[in-house]
């Protein structure tokens, strides 16, 4: 049994080796993401059922959404995934803490931009136009119950996703502070790596939400 005379930074007592700790952290995060898949999955299941039962209404509802903002936000999130990956790579290769912080801050800026666009140009507009069931709902002639159902799913799913974005921004803030305090090195950067997994996961959720919410039934003339 190896006796650790010197404890590397961030090493916890219950582990025997740094490697064991790193693997445990990794596996833990992946299992957490598996639970997240099932968490969003419950919502997706309900979505699949109601979409099949109320397809015409879901198409009508989907056409209330603005594709340009959905697509822009997809691009914004993909950019933020890239900057996140580069932040981790910088730490892996022993880059300066300044560079890591710049990448992290860029990631945060892009995340904030996503939320900004969502709030200002989409949800606020929906609020004004009375498209938010239970909060501000002006049911006009074309708004069958199915349309309301669609808008429910739109807000539940994008809302839950946005909540995850906010949590992600919080985690990134902590990472910036930790980096500034020299907690990471080329040998130890597990928190960065694990938070990165979470951030990419949130990106993947949006990759599915975009076509499933904004593009039902296509947007071609006559659709």
């Amino acid at each position: 049994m190896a006796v650790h005379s010197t404890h590397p930074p961030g090493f916890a007592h219950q582990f025997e080796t740094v490697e064991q700790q790193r693997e445990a952290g990794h596996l833990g995060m992946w299992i957490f993401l598996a639970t997240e898949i099932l968490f969003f999955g419950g919502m997706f299941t309900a979505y699949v059922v109601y979409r099949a039962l109320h397809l015409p209404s879901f198409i009508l509802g989907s056409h209330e959404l603005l594709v340009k903002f959905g697509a822009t936000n997809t691009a914004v999130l993909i950019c933020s995934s890239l900057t996140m990956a580069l932040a981790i790579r910088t730490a892996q290769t022993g880059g300066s803490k300044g560079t890591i912080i710049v990448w992290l801050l860029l990631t945060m800026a892009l995340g904030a931009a996503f939320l900004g666009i969502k709030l200002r140009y989409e949800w606020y507009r929906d609020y004004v136009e009375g498209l938010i069931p239970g909060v501000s709902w002006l049911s006009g002639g074309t708004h069958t119950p199915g349309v309301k159902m669609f808008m429910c799913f739109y807000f539940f799913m994008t809302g839950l996703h946005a909540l995850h974005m906010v949590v992600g921004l919080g985690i990134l803030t902590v990472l910036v502070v930790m980096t500034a305090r020299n907690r990471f090195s080329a040998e130890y950067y597990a928190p960065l790596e694990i938070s990165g997994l979470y951030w990419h996961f949130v990106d993947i959720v949006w990759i599915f939400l975009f076509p499933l919410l904004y593009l039902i039934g296509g947007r071609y003339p006559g659709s």
Partner: protein
Amino acid sequence: MTEPHGSDYHAPHIVPVGTYVLVFLALMLGTALTTWIAYIDLKAWNTVAALTIAVCKMLLVVLFFMHVKYSKGLTRIVIIGAFFWLGIMITLTCSDELTRHWEIVPQGWSAGALHLFRLLF
């Protein structure tokens, strides 16, 4: 001390910046393609196309950004398991929700089976 039964451990793989940029460009292209296809009339295939592209984009993110391409077994089992379970939930829920309007089972087989059991017991 190492994992007692053959380790999953791999020295952390450092992905070249070029790979990240290529993946990024592919993702952006995918987004553009998804949006563009939505404006073309493919009938029911619009949804199929959009979801296919989304799955490809997800694979790119998972394999490269999340480094699954460079990690072994257990991580992949976790991911595949999670999607498999999601599949169970959707499939079996739909086995009820989407078959309620189906014609009731044809008369023949159940009556036949019942007759068989009357003979047996």
